[in-house]
């Protein structure tokens, strides 16, 4: 027993040395992770700021001026052009100078005073559907407020109805919170997959695999020796992003760190199982890389990171059931932002355990049966 332990320790140590001794390797493991989490922390935002808009005010009355003042006053819309005719619409939108055009027609005030409805036309550049929806919603909010005040002032106020909104787990609705917590699982998955997928392929290409196979190590032990260090490196990667999230961006960690790491260990184990299976199936490093990539892309896209799984068609929802990242992101976000305990995450944990329990023996089996 103790001998086996020593031998396992020995092979893990070797694997870690091989991963970490190469300076280029070290750089590749650390630098991109930090740079990416920083850039994505800043870049990944759906929070609109300073939407450029163009104005065509054909009314010029007091009410129109007031509405425009409200639009300009939010700081959210930034007027980049004041137009004089509808002919100016196309150029200003086409060239993306303005994202939105506010068009107030000539009889706006007259209609408004007649009790409405007094339409204003809003044209939104919907080439980016997110931004378009977001800008339109903002404008609708401004008009709603204007309406309420107008009605109140003109004595026809219906009862005021306000909606008080609070957001749980992310009070200011910052995209960054969503993104970075998801990246803790996402980026470490890519690296873990790649590292394990390449580990056997590299030894095959360099001829060291045979040397390893003539030692008394059993395929199972070799697999453990490949798996543990990769899990460790995956955890280090996750920790790096975790540090960027907490220390640099100040996203508060609500849940328990221990629970978070417990979840991450299980998650990286499942990833390692997949990576090792790829590794055993690939004839060369190039194949290992390409296969990893072809798997990692759908994993990333269908993880719920970009869009909710519930929105996906049935067939794809089925595919996501085998996607470790789906569970990984769920575990990280719910522990990190929502502060739930592992007990609540039993479903995710069970799913990851099943993935690990299937892929690791599969990898071991493939090792043994592809020795020739």
């Amino acid at each position, binding site marked *: 027993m103790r*001998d086996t332990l020593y031998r396992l320790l020995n092979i893990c140590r070797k694997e870690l040395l091989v991963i970490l001794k190469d300076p280029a390797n070290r750089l590749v493991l650390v630098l991109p992770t930090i740079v990416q989490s920083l850039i994505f922390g800043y870049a990944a935002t759906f929070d609109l700021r300073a939407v450029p808009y163009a104005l065509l005010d054909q009314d010029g009355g007091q009410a129109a001026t007031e509405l425009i003042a409200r639009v300009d006053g939010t700081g959210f819309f930034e007027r980049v052009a004041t137009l004089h005719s509808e002919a100016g619409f196309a150029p200003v939108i086409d060239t993306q100078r303005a994202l939105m055009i506010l068009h107030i027609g000539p009889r706006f005030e007259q209609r408004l005073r007649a009790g409405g409805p007094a339409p204003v036309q809003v044209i939104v550049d919907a080439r980016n559907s997110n931004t378009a929806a977001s800008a339109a919603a903002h404008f609708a909010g401004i008009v709603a407020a204007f309406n309420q005040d107008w009605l109140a002032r003109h004595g026809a106020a219906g009862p005021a109805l306000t909606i008080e909104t609070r957001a749980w787990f992310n009070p200011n609705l910052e995209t960054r919170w969503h993104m970075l917590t998801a990246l803790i699982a996402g980026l470490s998955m890519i690296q873990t997959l790649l590292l394990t997928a390449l580990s056997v392929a590299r030894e095959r290409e360099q001829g060291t695999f045979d040397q390893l196979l003539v030692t*008394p190590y059993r395929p199972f032990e070799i697999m453990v020796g490949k798996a543990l260090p990769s899990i460790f490196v995956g955890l280090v990667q996750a920790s790096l992003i975790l540090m960027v999230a907490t220390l640099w961006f100040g996203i508060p960690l609500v849940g328990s760190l221990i629970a978070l790491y417990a979840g991450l260990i299980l998650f990286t184990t499942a990833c390692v199982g997949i990576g090792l299976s790829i590794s055993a199936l690939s004839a060369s490093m190039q194949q290992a890389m390409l296969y990893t990539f072809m798997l990692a892309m759908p994993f990333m896209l269908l993880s719920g990171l970009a869009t909710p799984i519930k929105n996906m068609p049935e067939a794809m929802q089925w595919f996501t059931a085998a996607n470790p990242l789906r569970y990984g992101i769920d575990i990280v976000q719910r522990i990190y932002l929502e502060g739930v305990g592992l007990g609540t995450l039993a479903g995710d944990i069970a799913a990851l355990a099943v993935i690990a329990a299937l892929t690791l023996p599969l990898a071991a089996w493939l090792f043994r049966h592809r*020795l020739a």
Partner: protein
Amino acid sequence: MNAQAPALAARGVGKRFVDRQTRAAVVALDAVSFEAAHGELTALVGPDGAGKTTFLRLAAGLMGAEAGTLQVLGIDVARDPQAVQNRIGYMPQRFGLYEDLTVQENLDLYADLHGVPAATRRDRYARLMEMSALGPFTARLAGKLSGGMKQKLGLACTLVAEPELLLLDEPTVGVDPLSRHELWEILLGLVAERRTTVLVSTAYLDEAARCAQVVLLHQGRVLRQGTPQDIRSEAEGLSFTAVPATGDSVRRLQARLFDDPPTIDAVPRGGAVHLVRRDVRPDNPDAALQAVLAGARIEAVAPSLEDGFMVLLDAVVGGERTTAAPGVADLPAGSVSAAAEPPTVIEVRDVVRRFGDFTAVDRTTFSVRRGEIFGLLGPNGAGKTTTFRMLCGLLPASSGFLRVAGHDLRHARAQARGKIGYVSQKFALYASLTVDENLDFFGGAYGLRGTRLRMRREAVTTRFGLGERGATRAGELPGGYRQRLAMAAALLHEPEILFLDEPTSGADPPARREFWRHITTLAESGTTIVVTTHFMEEAEYCDRVLIQEAGRVLAVGTPLEIRRQAGERDGRPPDMEQAFTAIVAQARAAAGDRVAA
């Protein structure tokens, strides 16, 4: 072009590299000057790290020299490398065949790149195919060819343009004697028929002996340039043959002679020891030498080129050996009982291995006794590697019985693996780890740890002269040291059986001698050695050899028995290489007859 002008002229060529680790400059070539005459074969010889490859790369315009000038076909390479590259053929040590292209596609590629017109192509292909015997395999992927065939295809690709000058960097490393012979026939034919100039670097001195000129490089300098005869004459009067007295063995005599300081070279050859001595006249031995000879009969013989080479090197190196003289103290335990017949440690019965419908090893039976040196010989693709991999437990047999170190390989592969050591053909340790880290890992893999591991590590590093290099990365070791490290790693756990797959492939003669001295010492102390080699003279170190061809066993026996099996020549058994060639050729002819019938 003036036929009198040299095809290649180097004047004071110097080249330095910067060591990545220490940032220190390493001199690869230092004021190298020599000329290679037009229409002749010139051989570039010298120990590992002498600068042979660097020189060829400079000549091919792949690197720039720091000092001196290098004129190739009358062109200054440094100034216009492309003009040179248009007219020469270059075969690097590791010819980068596109392994996922077929033989024909590889050939076509090089023919197109050199602009060989379609009209001349057919004749040329036909001739190249005939020369290289690759004709039946044109549709095969290059990656699926055996080592020797790959080399021949590489040469064919280099020759397809019929260049004026050929630069060949160790073209026959890892190639079996038959293919090597064929390859040289091609070269000699080219020089004779087309007056092609050839500059070839090689570790085989018998190849250099067939060249018009030999340039001996050592540590980046030209040690000597001359005809083979010039170099041979350096050993004039120093070469002898020693026939062991009855009761003594060739191997023991060779070992004793080799360890005796005034010996420059001692190798077993044809049932005797071929010997080059520095000062003492062995045919008139003093008391010290008499003790070493123990009654062996001494005769003066004509020196070979290798003898001259060894004498020249000896003059600079001074017979210094870099590895510790293997004493008996640090050898693995295991008493050699002279009385009883040693037990059988490897038993192979009716073993067959198939890959799909291809039978790589066919009903093979042999056994190896403890303490034997057992040689596996055979042309490239004969099934040696497959047999080897089955013995090491890397590959299961399709059928038959395999027992290694007392374990049936079907049931107890891991146990058997614990008792063997394995040195692969390609360097297969972790290049990014240091020498010590590699040794610690492999020690640990065999269950060594703590003091025991430290002691064993100490023992093997001392033995293989690796002591000062413990902190060097394996990948940055010079070639010879890598080989030693691989040996050290395989011997850490004192295996009962050591498997060596072409261990001396590409090594220079002094390195090969030292290597074999380690092997013979190990065998003396009871370790069983199974070795493959393409150097037929090395087969003479073996107790018994097996010759394989097309998966079948052609012959098993002592070197003498094998030589006798090949028939006598001039009333004497042929040397090992001739015997091997004859036996394989016979088998091939018989197989051809069978197919014809």
